[in-house]
């Protein structure tokens, strides 16, 4: 992830539909902007502003949902502006309790049919693509799109590839997909415009468990190359054979 704070960017607050505002800390993905979003979202939740219903961080922004008949947009913007001025959010620390998780991953084959296509888009051979993807230690920047589903980054420059113009009808649970220097690991089968390059046996969302969401923002993940029979071995393990250690 880009290490330099985006000094050229001051946070902006914009309306999102009638019932939301978006506080953005950048227009491109950077580590300081991502940390700012995670920390500011927690701060908005703690502030307990009357009329705010929910807040959630995305990659470099915080979405604040509110009741527009109970809380004026102008009042909310003023409160959020004051909160923004409280501290240097770009210098905020990462969340507590982070973990490093190594997940067995099958690259390519019938299980992940778009590896060759994605490698070509990145200007890499298939072998070089597998080497880069499986060596990368990426961080959960946000959870979104589907339950417990992480956006992870940043990958090397070569992976700044666009989404497809058409949606893939569905990729399965555990699918690893790539675009714009990020990976997404799918928590449920869904359509996507990202390219399916790897497959894991990880179950990210466990609706009947006391801890339904496996990954949290700030966790770091490495998608270690594995053979298809490794996935078969771990088919009944919700962790999909993942090895977990605490980050201190």
């Amino acid at each position, binding site marked *: 992830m880009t290490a330099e704070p985006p000094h050229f960017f001051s946070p902006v607050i914009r309306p999102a539909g009638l019932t939301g505002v978006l506080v953005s800390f950048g227009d491109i993905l950077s580590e300081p902007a991502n940390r700012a979003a995670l920390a500011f979202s927690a701060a908005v939740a703690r502030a307990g502003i009357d009329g705010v219903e929910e807040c959630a961080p995305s990659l470099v922004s915080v979405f604040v949902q509110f009741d527009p*008949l109970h809380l004026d947009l102008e009042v909310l913007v003023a409160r959020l502006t004051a909160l923004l001025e409280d501290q240097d959010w770009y210098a905020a620390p990462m969340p507590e309790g982070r973990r490093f998780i190594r997940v067995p991953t099958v690259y390519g084959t019938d299980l992940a049919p778009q590896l060759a296509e994605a490698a070509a888009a990145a200007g890499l051979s298939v072998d070089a693509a597998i080497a880069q993807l499986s060596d990368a230690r990426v961080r959960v920047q946000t959870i979104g799109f589907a*339950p417990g589903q992480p956006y992870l980054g940043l990958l090397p420059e070569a992976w700044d590839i666009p989404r497809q*113009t058409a949606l893939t009808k569905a990729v399965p649970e555990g699918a690893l997909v790539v675009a714009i220097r990020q990976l997404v690991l799918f928590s449920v089968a869904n359509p996507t415009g990202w390219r399916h390059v790897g497959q894991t046996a990880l179950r990210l969302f466990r609706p009947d468990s006391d801890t339904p969401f496996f990954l949290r923002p700030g966790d770091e993940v490495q998608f270690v190359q594995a053979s298809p029979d490794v996935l078969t071995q771990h088919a009944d393990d919700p962790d999909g054979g993942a090895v977990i250690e605490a980050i201190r």
Partner: protein
Amino acid sequence: MRALVVHRIAPGATVQDRGRAGYRAFGVSQGGAADPLALAEGAALLGQSPDLAVLELPGSGGVFEATAPLRIALTGAPMRATLDGAVLVWNASHAVPEGARIDIGGAVTGSYGYLHVGGGIDTDRRLGSRSAHLAAGIAAAVPAGAVLPVGADTGGAVGLCLPQDNRFDGGILRLVESFQTGLFDRETRDRFIATSFSRDARANRMGMRLNSEGGGFAARGGLNILSESILPGDIQITGDGTPYLLLRESQTTGGYPRIATVIPADLPRAVQTPSGGRVQFRFVARQEALEAEMRLRAHLKVLPKLCTPLVRDPMQMRDLLGYQLISGVTAGGAFEEGE
């Protein structure tokens, strides 16, 4: 056990309540009844809490049998319905004797019909709600053969109806600008507003594709923008320029740019647009959107007072006797009780 036995049911029919708020940060959208207005109408007709769960019927209904005397209400997209062969008025409440069969056919117009029961459908809550969230894999569509438990009914009148609404044929949907509206140039936005769209047949609880003649509606840098929060009503433009209206069960974030957001007050009309139905969009100022929201909430508040006794066909007095047996309260009496 008080229950509704499902003998036959439309594919994709689900148990729904108001959904689950508070899980957006974990990637779970609120979901809940696709048409929240229909949810509130059923609650008003049965004089019960709008938090109770109902059966959402996409496009058509099914055949259901009551294992005990039940009160029901039918709302949303009007469907042909009978109780042991006798016609049931839509947008109204009825008494269902033990063992009776409710047969709900296809939608005459609109998309989502609702079957409400006194006491609500009492399936297990997951993450605080009984709503199936198909996209998230929480619960599933209700299959034929299911037995849906029904909660204790505090009782009340039946034989009440609400005026039929006109939100089932598409029409004008009002928009406010989103934080990505500026990614679309003036010409594209103007053309979007001037275009008449038809709802694609492939719509679901996540969203609906909007078809039109002529070119797509591409944004500048459209395939490389950062994924950002989505709210219900957002109109996302995919890579090939096709608009998708995102609904309450949509993903929580997405990377395709959004040209604008349909205001909450017009979402019931949007979701009820039938396959092939036509919609067109109009930008409104924030103040107009707020006034529409105020009117909607005022309407929800007075719904119980808008319930009036059904004017009955003497040929169908059988039904009238049925509801007196259950509640001991006539429709007229309940009406005078007000809220």
